[in-house]
């Protein structure tokens, strides 16, 4: 009886020590759930800064131009050309396209996207930026 009682007391004490930690962890969890936005990780892209107040709306097609010049469509790095990939996707003309492009890249990095979208009949492009203000 003595052994069981001692174990119980120890277990109960350690559990009560855990409660403040659980409280803090729950608070952190709620903070990250409410304040954060779950996005695909883009450590290779430094977004351009803009004064644009247009709130981001997720595009139906997302194209990433990484700082090394590589292109990803929907998170998958392309081996071939973007034009061919978009042709294969057979996108409707009113497809909303969002481009994440590194701000340090030359403007010519946007050329192949503009040309590929034009070839696919898409006439609008949105560039993802961060708020400069």
């Amino acid at each position, binding site marked *: *009886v003595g052994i*069981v*009682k001692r174990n*119980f007391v120890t*277990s109960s004490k350690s*559990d009560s020590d*855990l409660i403040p*930690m*659980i409280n803090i*962890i*729950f608070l*952190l*969890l709620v903070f*990250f*759930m409410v*304040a*954060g*936005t*779950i*996005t695909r*990780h883009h450590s290779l892209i430094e*977004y*351009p*800064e*803009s*004064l*644009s*107040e*247009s*709130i*981001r*709306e997720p595009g139906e097609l997302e194209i990433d131009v990484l700082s090394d010049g590589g292109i990803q469509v929907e998170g998958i790095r392309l081996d071939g050309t973007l034009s061919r990939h978009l042709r294969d996707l057979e996108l409707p003309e009113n497809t909303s396209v*969002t481009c994440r*492009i*590194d*701000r*340090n*890249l*030359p*403007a*010519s*990095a*946007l*050329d192949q996207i*503009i*040309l590929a*979208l*034009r070839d696919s009949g*898409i*006439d*609008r*492009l*949105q*560039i*993802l*930026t*961060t*708020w400069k203000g």
Partner: protein
Amino acid sequence: MLQFEHQRRVLKIPLTPLIDVVFILLLFFMLSSSFLDTRMIGFAIPESSTIVSSSTDENWLRMSENQSVAINGKTFLQQHPAFTSYLAKLAREQAKVTVSAHSSNSIQMLVELLDRLRNAGVTRIDVTRSWE
């Protein structure tokens, strides 16, 4: 007495699995959450994405290597009030402006130019491929 204590232990919420799950959730949200204030800047892509041969084409705005801009035969410094006034005039006319950056300009410079156009009230903006 022993049985009573045993029953009390069974009724308690097992904290270790709870902490495990909560830690996993916390890690997931910490690693996948982004706190960047993301916005977007949109523009149209003109039907002909090839460079038009002359900078004197109507409302064809070309940004040069040194970030000065040429439009309709006039050259401006971007920060100069005359450029803002000219853009305001184009905005009043609801003119469409086609932008082409020099290939050596950065994407950031292009976005800043688009910001200037939007702030001046120009809403019909096309961006075409860069020029060299």
